[in-house]
């Protein structure tokens, strides 16, 4: 007999906590592997990754946790960013004082902003290192080509996010960094000016105006950067990140040496699978056969472990580690905030954010090559990589083994020697313009320290490719020298460039204005 509705209502109300728990966790916390699988299948976030992951994927020494650090930083950035948006006012009149308010009177405001700043730095570093890790382990190869390209997109979006956030406080630092950025966008003018066709087609001017909404950094630029920083780019990044994760699953997990799953190889150390107990009242059938050799078709016992809890532990631990690091940094080191933006008092030197300083150094040789030419060459080379170096037995092995490790160290030595040598030459001797004041600008665009470096790097890469008769060795040589160049140029621009982009050994030697 049915209970009276009121009694039923009271009873339902009483049993709601238990029901809620059942609805969320089904049969409580999972006890067996089957229940864990069930839980993974039925949870959106858990099911983004496989139910079982390869044991090798959990190795510290392989992934260094860099992808998770980048993801964790992004989540921290989202949370702190939303908190900052509550108080931030995107207008040139109010932006600066709203940041001051966040620093001075909003409860926990200063640490929120500091953490946002540090997490941004860490995300950029983690994304760059993650890319280096994927490169040096050869993980861009089939079937990971598409994910390598998405990763490249994620790198660009990360840099764009960080850069667009720079201007928002509307202080001298961000204002002049944005001005530098806008001038880099304008750099195709160097070519059109040299050809005398700027009045007909002004690509540089168009790009700058598109970025700023005006011919100089002001209200419109601030609103544009705000929109990009808070809406468009985070959305784009979230989508790309989702695809990036999903593709890891589709590509059979992250890369690993194929010898791990080959019975008979010395690396083959399988784990004993847990005993699978069929669920009550369920029937099981083969739903799909996945293309390819993975996941672990034909190799038993399997080399995989349950993602829940092992992968989850690793992810949560790295997430907490990242949180702890940004909190420590944010607690002791304040995010910079200079004077209110002042268009009549230029910062000298006005420096771009650190990750663009290498480019700014190149821009000081040739605006077009540094701002557009060389970055385009680098991005295109990286994008072509998985199609030029497609397959090999050394996938999943750092540097592809001893030979690659040797090429790596040799490339570091070569890259350092060449880059430092050219920098010393340029700083002490000058360049074409100092010797031939009337030289045509196009000559400088084609022949400047930046392009000379690119040519030397390319030569080194081809030299190694031929020497070892291996595309992979050529790629390692190329990637390593570019990485060394990036680090050295960034270092020189950050530490040794002072007012008017002159060379100084240390900041203390700068003439005080």
């Amino acid at each position: 007999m049915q209970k009276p509705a009121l009694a039923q209502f009271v009873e339902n109300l009483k049993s709601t906590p238990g029901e809620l728990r059942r609805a969320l966790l089904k049969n409580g916390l999972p006890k067996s592997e089957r229940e864990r699988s069930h839980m993974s299948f039925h949870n959106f976030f858990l099911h983004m990754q496989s139910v079982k992951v390869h044991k090798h994927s959990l190795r510290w020494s392989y992934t260094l946790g860099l992808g998770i650090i980048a993801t964790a930083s992004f989540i921290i950035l989202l949370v702190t960013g939303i908190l900052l948006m509550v108080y931030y006012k995107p207008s040139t009149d109010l932006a600066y004082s709203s940041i001051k308010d966040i620093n001075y009177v909003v409860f926990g405001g200063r640490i929120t902003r500091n953490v946002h700043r540090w997490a941004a730095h860490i995300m950029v570093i983690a994304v760059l290192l993650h890319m280096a890790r994927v490169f040096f382990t050869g993980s861009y190869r089939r079937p990971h080509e598409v994910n390598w390209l998405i990763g490249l997109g994620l790198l660009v979006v990360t840099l764009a996010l960080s850069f667009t956030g720079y201007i928002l406080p509307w202080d001298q630092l961000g204002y002049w960094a944005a001005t530098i950025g806008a001038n880099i966008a304008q750099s195709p003018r160097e070519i059109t000016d040299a050809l005398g066709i700027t009045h007909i087609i002004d690509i540089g001017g168009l790009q700058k105006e598109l970025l700023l909404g005006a011919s100089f950094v002001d209200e419109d630029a601030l609103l544009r950067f705000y929109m990009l920083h808070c809406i468009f780019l985070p959305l784009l990044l979230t989508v790309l990140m989702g695809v990036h994760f999903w593709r890891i699953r589709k590509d059979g997990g992250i890369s690993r040496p194929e010898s791990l799953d080959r019975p008979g190889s010395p690396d083959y150390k399988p784990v004993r699978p847990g005993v699978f107990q069929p669920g009550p009242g369920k029937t099981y059938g083969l739903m799909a056969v996945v293309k390819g050799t993975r996941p672990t078709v034909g190799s038993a016992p399997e080399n995989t472990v349950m993602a829940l809890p092992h992968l989850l532990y690793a992810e949560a631990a790295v997430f907490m580690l990242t949180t702890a690091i940004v909190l420590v940094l944010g607690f002791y080191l304040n995010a910079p905030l200079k004077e209110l933006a002042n268009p009549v008092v230029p910062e000298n030197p006005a420096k771009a954010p650190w990750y663009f300083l290498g480019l700014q150094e190149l821009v000081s040789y040739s605006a077009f090559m540094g701002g557009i030419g060389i970055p385009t060459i680098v991005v295109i080379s990286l994008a072509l990589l998985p199609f030029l170096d497609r397959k090999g037995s050394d996938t999943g092995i750092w540097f592809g083994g001893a030979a690659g490790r040797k090429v790596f160290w040799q490339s570091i030595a070569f890259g350092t020697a060449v880059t430092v040598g050219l920098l010393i030459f340029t700083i002490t001797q000058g360049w074409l313009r100092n010797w031939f004041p009337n030289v045509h600008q196009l000559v400088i665009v084609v022949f400047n320290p930046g392009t000379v470096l690119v040519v030397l790097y390319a030569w080194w890469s081809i030299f190694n490719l031929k020497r070892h008769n291996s595309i992979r060795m050529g790629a390692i040589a190329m990637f390593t020298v570019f990485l060394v160049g990036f680090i050295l140029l960034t270092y020189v621009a950050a530490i040794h460039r002072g007012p008017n982009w002159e060379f100084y050994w240390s900041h203390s030697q700068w003439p005080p204005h």
Partner: protein
Amino acid sequence: MPIDNPDQDISRGMKWLMLVSSLVVLALLVGVIKSNVFTEWRAHQKEYRKLLLAKAEDEASRESAKSFDVRMQQAVVPELKATDRCISCHTGIDDPRMADEKQPYRTHSGTLLEDHPVGKFGCTVCHRGQGLAVTNEEAKAVHAYWDYPMLPDNLTQASCGLCHDPKSLKGRGGNVLARGAELFETRGCRSCHKLGGRGGALGIALDNEGRKVIHQLVLTDLKGEHTVWNWLVEHFRDPQAIVPTSLMRNPTLTEPEIEALTTYMLSLTTQTFPNEYIASDKVEQKYAEIYPQKPDAEKLYAQFCYSCHESGTYGRWDKVSKRFIPAIRGSGLAVSPAGFLEKQVRLGREGTQMPGWHQQAGGLRDAEITALVAYLRAGNQPVTEMWAPKSAGDISRGQGLYAQNCQGCHGAAGKGGIAPVLASPSFQQAASDAFIVTTVRNGRPDTAMPAFQRPGKTGLSDKDLTDLLAYVRSMK
């Protein structure tokens, strides 16, 4: 074939990492909460409440002291774009009972707050500093990224000049500022610097000098604190010690005068304030500027001429500008044609450092220039004898005579040396033949210019003078 022990917990390391990281996060969150709750201003307000309780004499004031609420306090003045949280620590700023307490509890000195209540004026419009900040160090902002750090007490009068006529504050609490304004008008600062459109062109205009930020100044040789006011003080002590290329002569000021002028400099701004903040004396000052009184030539001379020409009766060599500065008063000018001096004053003299002073250039009104010229000519001897050649002279012969007699002082081709420039269009236009020839013939009393034709017509002959004039007239 080795098989991993399935019971071995492969996530052990991660669990430890998670535990340690979580503990660090927890500790830091506690630290964050602590630093956000136990703030400098809360401690000060609690101390202030104790002071209130100790000073309470009757039941009512004891009750109000007990109910004193510890909370963030700020003066928000949208008209002045000020949000000043200074009163979160200086809670007793307008409480006369706190007159003898130590800072930050002490009452504001003097009676200034009676006419300038905190609620209407805030704090930073006078004291500068960072009103948004809530700690002492950041509020003063002397060594912070803040354009306008808190002014030292002895210079704070500068801010009175924002709404008051500096000169009217003499004896009304603004003696230092008033003295600075007076020095500015009497020490010839306007000879080189414009203020309100009136002044020379050799130095920079000073209209917004008080709003300069430290990054706009040359700091290479500045000793001591890197603040705008310290720069101004050191610059007044010795301009070339701070800016080696400066043309400014050492103003030879006493220390109190330096303080006064620095105060006045800091008061100069092009900022505008709402009408209700402008004092009546400021309105009177503006009125006097728009409807000026009869020009006072002596005062004008001191303002605009003195610092280069000094008394004006002697030509002199100026070490700083490395130039000859001519005499502009005295009997030598008696032979100048009518309008000569006036033209020189109005238009200046190209090729020299003498700027034009007419309304659009140096900002002087016609009546003022007329008065100034009359002042310059006063006491000149009446013209006795003027002589001008009747016929055209021989330029090339004149050139030879110039090389022998004139070039040593007036420079090759009249470009100037230790004597005035002759190859200047404004000189060529304004000087008549008779003026030039008579000056060469008779010399210029009180200056280095000798007479070239002595009594009895020794020295240069009339023919020589005619040829010389022809050459001088050919100068461009």
